[in-house]
């Protein structure tokens, strides 16, 4: 008899998801490719479970590098989607690794049509030569709006947050709340009568047509990855609740003030965000092939807050969120931007064994292995700075040392510390070579 989902342990649920992941979503071109897909994925899964695979898996988060590697700029690929697929194929064929999704380029025109205010990118607020987009942090939520955010999140999203982050949605600022159902159909109709809304809907339709073109290219890229036996990695994305507030809503300066002036409101919202994120993340993963959930982490790092603040504001709800999705068989893969000191590593090591992956940017990897070695799979940390400034030989040597330090006993993925933009392709090759040469168990 098969066990019901509700009766399964988190490990059993994860096994179910791993099984789904090991079955490629489409028929692969040949048995050899299918074998390759399963080998690569088995390597990943073993590393996650802190078992010993045949060799250390390699993961390259390449970002803008994909464009530059093909002789284009980031500006080129953001505006000309036809360049994306050939660049992606080139990247796939040149760099061996154990997973690949699709490139992370957004559709610049969609953002322009809707006047997206949260990003600047080459050709839009940044020089065309810029190699990375820029995140524009602001108080998109006012200090006195926590209550609305908590008690009627959709309303806050619709009438406050969206118009502030997407300029085209300005008309929503003057619409009355939809929190009462009475007469809602009529009110929606009245809304559509407003010429400003007509303009907005025209823009959305235009944007979604543009988006569809872009999506098509991205889907094709994902197919290209599969065709070459690369398993998909990204099943979903989430943020630590504190980062949701600090990055997206209140901004760094806003959240810092809130930690002192209205800590209760902040903590209360973090709980609600954690609950909502569990639901939406599991929903995303249910629709995906891979159970891996990417978690870019920001404001909990050494330079942003003290350890007592981390313990009070950052960790409890983040832990709740992690455990919530783990319990549903998902595998959170954190990327710790900046660095975590010993105290922080100790705090995060207190999770059930092997339920997450910690990717480090600047955190000391030996220390990570020492503290997290019995707790979770770790990944990292050839940094963008190294790739940019050092020689292939130096990088290969660094990667060799990483493997030597972190690989013993399993539970290690050779990875970059962050996404990269421009570097000598030889340097990235050096990472791969080191993995292939020194990573065998």
């Amino acid at each position, binding site marked *: 008899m098969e066990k019901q989902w509700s009766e399964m342990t988190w490990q059993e649920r994860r096994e179910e998801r791993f099984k789904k992941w090991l079955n490629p979503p489409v028929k692969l071109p040949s048995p050899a490719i299918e074998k390759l897909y399963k080998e690569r994925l088995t390597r990943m899964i073993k590393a996650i479970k802190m078992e010993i695979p045949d060799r250390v898996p390699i993961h390259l988060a390449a970002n803008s590098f994909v464009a530059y590697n093909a002789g284009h700029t980031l500006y080129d690929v953001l505006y000309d989607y036809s360049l994306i697929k050939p660049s992606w194929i080139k990247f796939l064929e040149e760099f061996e690794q154990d997973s690949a999704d699709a490139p992370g380029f957004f559709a610049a025109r*969609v953002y322009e049509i809707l006047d997206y205010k949260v990003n600047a990118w080459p050709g839009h607020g940044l020089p065309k030569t810029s190699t990375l987009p820029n995140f524009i942090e602001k108080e998109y939520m006012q200090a006195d709006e926590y209550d609305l955010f908590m008690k009627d999140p*959709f309303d806050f999203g619709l009438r406050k947050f969206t118009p502030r982050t997407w300029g085209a949605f300005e008309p929503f600022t003057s619409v009355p709340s939809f929190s009462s*159902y009475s007469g809602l159909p009529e009110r*929606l109709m009245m809304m559509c*009568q407003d010429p400003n809304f007509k303009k907005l809907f025209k823009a959305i339709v235009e944007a979604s047509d543009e988006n*569809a073109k872009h999506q098509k290219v991205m889907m094709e890229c994902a197919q290209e990855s599969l065709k070459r036996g690369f398993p998909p990695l990204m099943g979903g994305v989430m943020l630590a609740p504190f980062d949701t507030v600090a990055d997206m809503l209140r901004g760094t300066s806003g959240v810092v003030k809130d930690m002192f002036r209205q800590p209760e409101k902040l903590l209360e919202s973090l709980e609600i965000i954690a609950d909502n994120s569990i639901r939406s993340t599991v929903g995303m993963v249910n629709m995906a092939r891979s159970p891996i959930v990417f978690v870019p982490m920001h404001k909990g790092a050494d330079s942003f807050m003290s350890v007592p603040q981390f313990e009070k504001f950052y960790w409890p709800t983040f832990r709740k969120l992690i455990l919530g999705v783990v319990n549903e068989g998902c595998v959170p893969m954190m990327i710790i931007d900046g660095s975590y000191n010993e105290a922080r590593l100790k705090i995060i090591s207190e999770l059930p064994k092997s339920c997450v992956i910690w990717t480090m940017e600047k955190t000391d990897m030996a220390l990570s292995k020492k503290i997290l070695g019995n707790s979770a799979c770790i990944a990292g940390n050839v940094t963008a700075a190294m790739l940019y400034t050092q020689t292939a030989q130096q990088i290969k040597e660094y990667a060799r040392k990483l493997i030597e330090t972190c690989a013993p006993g399993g539970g290690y993925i050779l990875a970059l510390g962050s996404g990269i933009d421009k570097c000598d392709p030889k340097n990235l090759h050096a990472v791969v070579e080191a993995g292939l040469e020194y990573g065998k168990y």
Partner: protein
Amino acid sequence: MPQTKEWKDMTWQEKREARFDRWLNPPEVKFVSKEAEQLYKERVTRFIKAIKLEEPDRVPVMLPTGNFPAYWGGSSFHELMYNYKKGNEIWKKYMVAFGDMDAFNGPNFIPAGKISEVVRSKQTKLPGLGLPKEATMNQFVEGEYMMPDEYDRYMLDPTDYNLRVMMPRTTPLFESFKKLPAFSNIMGNFWVMALTDPDVRKTFETLMSLTDEQRKWTAATLEISQYIKERGYPSLFGGGVMAGAPFDHFADALRGTQGIARDMFRQPKKLHEAMERYLNWTIETNIKNFPMTQSPICMMPLHKGDDAFMSDKQFAEFYWPTYRRLLLAMIDEGLVPMPFAEGRYTNRLKQITDTPPSGVVWYFDQTDMKEAKRILGGICCIAGNVPTSVVIKGTPETVKEYCRKLIQDCAPGGGFILAGGASIDNGKIENLQAMMEAAKEHGVYKK
């Protein structure tokens, strides 16, 4: 009068005076003559005095005119759903034919047919749309649109619940809203993803295709309402459409009578919690800082609190506390809530006395008016209640006699508005005129 005090520093009576003043001197109305202006002011003053429990020159009258002019003019509800111009013409003729009235409104409650066809709600039937073409009224269709286990979901994110759950259930045009993503994950391009879905897009395209029709209907509605006022007839419905009682919100639109009756026994706490939330939102989002509208009167049809639907004990526990707080919040903004107690409220009278004197106007349908006067006299202005049957089937003499008795019972000392128990559709203009005559003959206050 120049305002010397900040709004927030005013007492509720001062706020109400400011709103009354706006009603009495409407800046958007250009009266056709001095006489029209004078009549307008006399009429509004009559209502204001009655509301304030003072003695006006005579008892004011709220005629149960409803959609009667349509039938008087040889047309029908159904026809006027499609021919707004004709509706306005008939109403104009009717106004002249009738003569003196204390208040009058356009055919506002007849919706636009072309729009109703497309945005068909399962909760409403209209002549030709679910009802025979000859039907003279719209019909509300109650159902269990919210499930018993959905209170938590509703409370967690009410807007989300309304848009993604209720709309698809009640209105087929919004079926696609099921596919809207939740907003709880606030990263990413929500609307772009939503509108990439062809069904969601189609819904919005359909809505926008109705814009011209909607504009025509709105223009016609504005035209007639302006026309009527310019000729000296005030409107009592200028306060905007207001929320009803929190209990009714759940009982009528969401859970239905059966559902709510079970909830009162099986999950009273959830129901209380949800009503509490709903009340707070309503006050926060709809009542506070309520704009200066044409009149401060807010008609509030009430349903499930009447004698037949619940016991005194249930009324005291489930209905009155949240509704009373809503009334107090409205009064505090200077608004004049006018609950329309459909059905019978005779048992309730003793339970609704705890509102500030002159704050509320109770409009009764089948309630014993003598009792109402005895219990609410000095607390609330009361309005009512010539039965529809008498207005439709009676003779001018029987109507007049009925009115005379009502005036005798309720008018002394002020605080009474003569009204019908409910609006009529078919009937005789003479009977409505008889109501006016009764007020003039028997309702004059001696100085």
